[in-house]
């Protein structure tokens, strides 16, 4: 489906975006101001600025349009495909509008916020093109809840297997069952890893104990380690699943809030330009 967003209607919106970009380039190079200073204050600058501002408002309207199921007019696929391509064209329009003049001011702030929004959108686009496939491969037909249920039942099996194996082993297994978690902070969610995972620590600890203690229950150790290894494998998959889902989400935490800051900065930019004309 997401591949189809790019080739949607035989690249109709790519063509629109190219047309807008071409128009911006022609306006920029065709009108050389007498003072030689190309910036947002020339006629070409005003034209490009107007187009850019309208594009931003229209692109943000997508957030409202996509929530209206069955709304009339173009389909959400049309909107999304156009949102992607015209959002990319906005970089061309807005950059030429700046005349490549930047500074520490509200004008460049608006531009920088716009770039952040667009780049996060590009990240989101690639995430939607790549991640679902990885997610399917990782899940092997199992949902995250099922994985977690299996992890829980493995915990019970591990505990049972550890009961006859000495207090240290027992404590490690108990910790692995009671303190292992999936996800957590932003970094753990996004990395899909837990360097301090109690289950990993239990495997290392039990292995160490199995090698360094004299025990008549080698079979018990082996059985426990196999259970723990299965649990760790499942944990890895569950964590990757959480990571993949968060990759489909994380860019929106940039894309959406920054776009609202952008909208306000854009208003401040336009007001300030004409306030101090």
């Amino acid at each position, binding site marked *: 489906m997401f591949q189809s967003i790019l080739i949607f209607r035989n690249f109709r919106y790519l063509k629109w975006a190219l047309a807008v970009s071409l128009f911006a380039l022609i306006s920029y190079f065709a009108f050389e101001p007498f*003072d030689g200073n190309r910036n947002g204050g020339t006629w070409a600058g005003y034209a490009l600025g107007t187009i850019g501002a309208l594009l931003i408002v229209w692109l943000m309207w997508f957030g409202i349009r996509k929530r209206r199921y069955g709304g009339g007019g173009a389909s959400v696929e049309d909107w999304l495909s156009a949102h992607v391509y015209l959002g990319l064209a906005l970089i061309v329009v807005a950059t030429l509008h700046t005349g490549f003049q930047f500074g520490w001011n509200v004008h460049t*702030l608006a531009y920088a916020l716009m770039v952040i929004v667009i780049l996060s959108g590009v990240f989101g686009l690639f995430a939607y093109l790549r991640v679902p496939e990885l997610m399917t491969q990782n899940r092997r037909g199992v949902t995250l809840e099922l994985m*977690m249920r299996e992890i829980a039942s493995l915990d019970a099996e591990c505990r049972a297997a550890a009961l*006859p194996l000495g207090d240290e082993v027992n*404590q490690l297994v108990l910790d692995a069952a009671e303190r292992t978690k999936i996800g957590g902070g932003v970094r753990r969610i996004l990395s899909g890893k837990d360097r301090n995972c109690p289950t990993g620590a239990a495997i290392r600890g039990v292995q160490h104990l199995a090698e360094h203690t004299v025990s008549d229950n080698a079979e018990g150790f082996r059985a426990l380690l196999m259970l723990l290894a299965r649990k760790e494998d499942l944990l890895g998959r569950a964590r990757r699943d959480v990571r993949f889902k968060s990759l489909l989400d994380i860019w929106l935490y940039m894309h959406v809030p920054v776009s*609202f800051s952008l909208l*306000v900065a854009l208003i401040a930019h336009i007001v300030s330009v004409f306030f101090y004309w």
Partner: protein
Amino acid sequence: MDILVTHLSRRAKGGVSRRIEELSVNTVRFGRNTSLEVYLPDPRVQLDHAVMLLRGAELFVEAVGQADIRVNGRPVRSKLLQTGDVLGVGPYDITILAPPEGKDAAIDVELVRPLGDDFEKLQARSILSLEEYGLSRRLWSWVGAIVTLLVFLIAPIMYFSAHQEQSVKQTAGVRPDSAWNSGPISGSHRFVSDQCNICHQEAFVPVKDEACGACHALTTHHFDAKTDTFSKVGKFVNFSKERCGACHKEHDENGNISITKQEFCIDCHKGLEQTVAGIDTKNAGRFDRDHPEFRPAVVIDSANKVFRRVKLDDKAALVEQSGLKFPHDKHLKKEGVRGPAGKETLQCANCHQLPHGAAGFQPIGMEGMCERCHQLVFDPRRPDRTLPHGQVMNAQLLLREFYSDYALRGGFEEQAPDVAGEAERRRPGSQPEITQGVRINPREWADSQAQKVADQSFGKIMCGKCHEVSTGVGLGPLNWAVVPATVTKTWLKHGRFDHSAHVDMLKCDACHAAEQSKSAADVLLPKIAVCKECHGDANATNQVPSTCLTCHAFHLPGQPLMGARERARADWNGVGILDVTAPAPEGEKN
């Protein structure tokens, strides 16, 4: 001892099931080890956790190793147990019962804190999405939008509303509206760069000319917009209707507040002769191709300082009538000229001197220049006495007084042959006796001497060596007069040429053929072709890029004031906003 052990387990739907064991052992051991008397299969219990034993008729409990046990909730290492005590081993509660008949002890064993549902606990510990973690798009959208609104829109507007004063101040710190600054302020305006309202006086109104006029009150026009010649031409751009800001754009990163593109000038000047009938200004385009030949302003009437612009090609008309005679070639002879201290070779800079801190040359004059050699000595017997330059009446008086004095001191006698022996002879060494007859004769002699020098010697030969002298009855008391001299300060009236920018790389004769010039009537201005040897078009890469503004200015001296500056000038006090608001010194306040 004989002990009755009852394992209680509660069912999910209520009710209790019991499993009863009867043991006859020495000690009752509790732990996770299956070989123990009371097997407690929970990971929170140690393999060997606690031991219960009978001492006489009393029942004791002891913890094994470091294991934790509690009796009635209190941690203990060992304790005498009474009926009704509750022994805590891990998640198990072991209640001491009154022993039934024939038994030494009886206990209930119950798992009171089961491990619970692993799945639910795992779910509770895990945070599976960013949203669950607490990231909120809505919250951050609001925060970002409100902060941006306050900092970049509300604060600047409030600051502008509260600070309308027009005085220039050194402000400390960052003003809220400085975030609106779209680019650096150009050099000479930078002193007000942190006070937006000095220029942006009214909201949503383009910078007014009055704001510029507060300082630039005397900026002149490009032409006189009121003259008929221009107002009749429809196509003509009437600059007086433009704001200053239409051409002068501030806040540009390149720091250039003026239009420097020559196309701006050429747009009108390429066809000016056709657009404005009868205009004296010639059509002009890019310098390397379409610039007309120079038309220096030469003197045609030195007495009345009348100039006429003559094209350099027009050899016949190109005659400077300055009233002076000055052959450059004789003065610049390689072998030198006679100077006051022998031979000396003159350089251009002996007379044409570039002053410090001013444009153009210092004026050339008799004083300190010509007079070093051309001293106005009028009597060979007294080479130390000279006439004042440029003051004919004074010179005449000086001559009379000189010769009168000379005669009175006896010099008259030595001139006896000139006055036909009318003087009385006297012995050498004695003072002359002044008689009535003698007194008259020296005075006549002095007058005639003065007249002779004035009339013949200095009148024609001395002044006339350098000046044009006209003779005729009634021209002054001596029937002759020096034609007033006018030296052209600059031949080019509309172009600026800075000699100081050229003299460090070019010799004077690279442009000026002074060594071949025999007459002061020569105009030694080089043709434009000489300039073009180095100066090219604005886009030249192998020459000095030269635009109109390299030599010309837009606001021309002598033109009327431009636009709103005429109004601003009415109440302009000569120093602009800087002085208007200068605070009075402390002591002067009332």
